[in-house]
């Protein structure tokens, strides 16, 4: 008896090769590079403004921070304003762990894996995408993927120099080898499954707060 793999592939090969022989015009279009909407293109200032606008449209909040040293203070202020609790779980990324957390003793920070009762996480982002106000985040040794989706509040640090126009430009920053999980995050977790009513915070974050760091 032939294997399922052989059966499926031979049936598909017969059908697909007939299509290739009949009309191969899709080939050029599909391999000819992406079609980008105008809003994925522009000079850096335009991309940055569009990113902020689109991220807010998707329900995220965006705060501009002048330099890295001001990040802990900005997070402390954000939490006291918007979200309960002073405990933060951080990605073990040296860029994040090395921030001057000691200057805001109110915050209890712990790098590593999120636990079920953690309420807020802080991670970096590979890139910001102006097209839709999305963040590209990746899992890895420093960043557990669960940090992006388990806590009620997700705070993301985005360097201004990592702003890009399109998804494709952002993906190119991942290098040749894809991480296990790479996610475009656009606003908080949401649903409209109950009577089509928009609701946020289904499983993942209720709040997505982006700190856009200039320095």
């Amino acid at each position, binding site marked *: 008896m032939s294997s*399922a*793999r052989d*059966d*499926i*592939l031979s*049936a*598909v*090969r*017969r*059908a*697909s*090769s007939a*299509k290739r022989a009949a009309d191969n015009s899709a*080939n050029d*279009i*599909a*391999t000819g590079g*992406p*079609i980008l*909407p*105008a*809003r994925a293109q522009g000079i850096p200032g335009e991309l940055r403004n569009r990113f902020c606008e689109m991220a807010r449209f*998707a329900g995220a909040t965006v705060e501009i921070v002048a330099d890295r040293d001001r990040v802990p203070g900005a997070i402390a202020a954000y939490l006291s304003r918007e979200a309960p609790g002073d405990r933060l779980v951080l990605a*073990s990324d040296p860029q994040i762990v090395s921030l001057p957390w000691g200057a805001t003793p109110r915050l209890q920070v712990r790098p590593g*894996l999120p636990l*079920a009762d953690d309420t807020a996480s802080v991670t970096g982002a590979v890139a910001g995408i102006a097209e839709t106000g*999305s963040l590209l985040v990746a*899992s*890895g*040794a420093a960043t*557990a*993927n*669960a940090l992006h*989706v*388990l806590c009620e509040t997700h705070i993301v640090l985005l360097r201004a120099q990592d702003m890009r126009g399109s998804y*494709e430009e952002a*993906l190119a920053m991942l290098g040749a080898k*894809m991480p*296990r*999980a*790479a*996610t*475009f*995050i*656009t606003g*908080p*977790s*949401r*649903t*409209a*499954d*109950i*009577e*089509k009513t928009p*609701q946020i*915070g*289904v*499983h*993942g*974050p209720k709040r997505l707060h982006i700190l856009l760091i200039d320095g």
Partner: protein
Amino acid sequence: MIMDAAPDQSSAPDFPARAAAALADPTLQGALTKLQTEFRRDRAAMLGRIPEFDQLRDHATAIRNHSLAHLDELLEQFETNVSLTGGIVHWCRNAAEACETVTGICRAVGAETVAKSKSMLSEEIALNDHLAAASIEPVETDLGEYILQLRHETPSHIVMPAIHLNAGQIADVFREAHTDHDPARYLGDADALLAEARAMLRQKFLDADVGITGANALIADTGSILLVTNEGNADLVHSLPKTHIAIVGIEKAVATLDGAMAVVRVLARSATTQEVTSYTTLVTGKRRANDADGPSSFHVVLVDNGRSRMLAGPYAEALRCIRCGACQSLCPVYGAVGGHAYGAVYAGPIGAVLTPNLGAPGGLGAARHLPQASSFCGQCEEVCPVRIPLPALMRRLREDAFEDRQITVAGQKWIAAWGWAAQRPALYRLGRRIGILMLRILAKVSGGTIRTLPLAGGWSATRDFPAPEGGSFVELWNRRKRRESS
């Protein structure tokens, strides 16, 4: 209205009876009106934000055509690249093989509970029943699917599965199922329902031994799968349990990440009128040596279940489908009767084409009503992000049903008689003149409006219409031609 049994595509979906029940259900009618009114409004706003949408649809269509014309190469390349990341690809000819394969993987790791994110393919192959029969508890984690699982129902819409329910019905089933909660608790609004579901499902994620997802695309070039959700449930499903299984139809392959992004640019806009969903994830293999989290094994279960047969035939274009549900959200027939009336996993125009083609051969017998459930208004084709010619495909299915004698004997005789007369223009015109005369007389005796027709009492029971006025199209045409030449 609770549907018991899992959908069985081989059983005859009694569309006329279910449609009649749906028309008499005021809750359902309210939900459908809200869905279609809001979808139309929100889609118009979406189109205003993205002037290039038609170009993006053309590009996505070309990407999907390329996929279908190179599917054999893409699937082999995908398999090779998944293997390089330490993942395992399984090939399944039909629903039974797919269910066996998934259950086998679950058994091998001693799984007791499985967390699932939304997968239409899982509905198509009735995976949950199979897992439960093997004493493995499947837990749907998409909010809508979770509600339906508690109610033992199937989705009534591809992307809004519980669109047919109201908050009261959801509160009822939560009270029934969540027996360890205080029976007197408040569940009177959507927020209270959401908070309870979040807490219940959080524990399920943490307890699950296996996570099962679908995939919105397979990327041949990298061996990645694309997962699109708004809730973030798929991201917990593929990150927390020790084993991740993705079950995917073979037609979902695309060549490159660029191709996957071309699909992303039209998917959410068509499905929910959002710019993009909250979470758009590329998963590539299992946990790496130094990764902070992730599953220790990764399986992709590729399922044919009729797709390779469809690819070789006249309905291949429907395999471009990216499961956005836009054709359902705008279809006037879907809007009148809802998804469950179709009695099939895939409802609406795309369901009318997929249902007879998927599964075992000869599906048109059971699904013969579905291509009839169309007014041929063409809106489904107009909104389809990958430009599937749904009306033409449904018309072709009607022809197949006639040729296969899948319609009633009376119906066959009517069509044969009409065909005979249509080939004899003089006779046809005479018959039409007599018909118009009879209708005028009928209107006169019933006071101007025709309320019932002899021999078509069923058809006219829900339709009133005025007597025909003026001439026929052919008469008007001839009159105009005479005027123009004079």
